[in-house]
């Protein structure tokens, strides 16, 4: 892996290069997150290095407890890492004080909650939601709201309030709100988890289309429908990056200390948790002792 920038960047660059010069929407370097609770410390993230390409969909996959939510909260600028550096757009957000971060976040990142209705205000119509999102990001109403509603297939529903929309329509409205003002990053927490497969497919096709237009998405998901549109998938396990998948090729990740995770299926070969590592002809061989 050539050392040409943030660790993890070169893999994404090599697989997404067909879209032209790759730019990066966000990077994490050596991210550690420790929570302190009554029973002791919880190490949720153990040194994550990752680059999130601009104009692409990055999926963050992994079982419960793998650190997905912690990573998402840090990328969405609602939580600080215990150590490490986070850049979103052209801002280093890791060291910012809470107030500054909160003000900056409105323009830098938007967030989509898992439950579609949690993204929406019960009193506002679909069009008012978009006007409100535009106003919050310092834009003047310019007719873009109706255009965006048309793009997500809700033009005829512009006067409807959230409870008059189906779950899929609510999610599409939340998506339209999240991209208004072109934030550097749209972070979505399992956006298809509460949708039927047809609505999930429609939503993710829209996400993919927006990525083609230059919007940058990071999506935590287990859902194959959502994974299918991802340009890059980061697999987390036990708070560390296990592997990355791009263009159907999966590569294991070697962290800054040289650690690599053995795939769970291969662990049974090592009941004593000891291995012999040999280098032969440029290949690394890991065998039971």
């Amino acid at each position, binding site marked *: 892996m050539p050392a040409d920038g943030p660790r993890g960047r070169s893999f994404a660059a090599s697989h997404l290069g067909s879209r032209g010069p790759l730019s990066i929407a966000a990077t994490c370097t050596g991210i550690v997150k420790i929570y302190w609770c009554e029973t002791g410390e919880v190490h949720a993230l153990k040194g994550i290095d990752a680059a999130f390409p601009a104009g692409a969909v990055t999926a963050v996959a992994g079982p419960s407890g793998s650190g997905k939510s912690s990573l998402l909260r840090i990328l969405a600028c609602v939580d600080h890492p215990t150590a490490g550096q986070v850049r979103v757009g052209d801002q280093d957000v890791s060291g910012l004080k809470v107030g500054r971060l909160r003000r900056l976040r409105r323009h830098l990142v938007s967030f989509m909650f898992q439950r579609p209705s949690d993204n929406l205000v*019960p009193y506002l119509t679909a069009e008012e939601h978009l006007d409100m999102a535009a106003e919050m990001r310092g834009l003047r109403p310019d007719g873009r709201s109706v255009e965006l509603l048309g793009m997500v297939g809700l033009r005829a529903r512009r006067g409807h309030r959230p409870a008059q929309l189906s779950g899929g329509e609510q999610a599409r409205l939340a998506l339209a709100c999240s991209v208004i003002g072109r934030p550097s990053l749209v972070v979505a927490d399992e956006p298809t988890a509460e949708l039927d497969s047809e609505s999930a497919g429609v939503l993710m096709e829209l996400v993919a289309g927006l990525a083609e237009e230059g919007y940058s998405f990071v999506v935590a998901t287990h859902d194959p429908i959502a994974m299918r549109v991802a340009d890059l998938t980061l697999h987390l396990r036990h708070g560390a990056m296990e592997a990355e998948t791009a263009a159907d090729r999966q590569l294991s990740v070697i962290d800054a200390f040289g650690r690599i995770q053995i795939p769970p299926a291969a662990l049974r070969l090592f009941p004593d948790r000891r291995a012999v590592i040999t280098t032969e002809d440029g290949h690394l061989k890991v065998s039971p002792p």
Partner: protein
Amino acid sequence: MTSGILPVERADGATVVEVRDVHKSYRRGSEEVHALRGVSLALQAGEVAVLMGPSGSGKSTLLNVLCGWEHPERGEIVWMGDPSGPPPSQLRWDQIAIVPQNLGLMEELSIRENVSLSIRLGLSGSMEDVDELLSAFGLEHLAARSPWEVSLGEQQRTALARALVLAPRLLLADEPTGHQDEAFARRVLRVIRAATRIGTSCLIASHNEEALRIADRVLTIRDGVVRESGTPSTTQDDELPRTFSPPR
């Protein structure tokens, strides 16, 4: 409570909304659920009606029909005594404010900005009322935080404050104490009770027995049928928080 200084339509006893023989059913998988089977009731200005009933009895459906989010298959909703008036779905937030179980706070806005959303949108309301409600709900020290940074109970109180800023004619609240501890549940109920002083009519769906203390009327819903189940003794005005005078 009498309100001699209030306009007639806000004075106690004036009917705010009437539900006439409303039927509503929906499909759950292959099953057809008759959520409301001929419900009739009237809500008056300045009263608190508490709607009790087991889960799945139709409480939320009734609130949704009342605010126009769902349309009845039969029957009608009559707003302010005018059968030819606009349907509830077209009424503004200063007429009907609903606090559903999904709170829908805007995460990019602070707690104070969420509560003052109506002002931001150019509807009426004043920042004095916003601050008074923040204080009444015990949120003043959290005003600058975002909804992410506060508990679910605090988020629920924020949604209630946001609903009350415009002094709506009708407040519909679905389990408004559902995320509150005992002390805050009492506080929430007392602020709701205080809101009726300016003629707001409140319908609260609740499992919480404590809600009966502020109720003028208790309605019970079971199998889609609503029955009046009595008039409990209500909390006296002098037990209400003195810091809160409802917005006008």
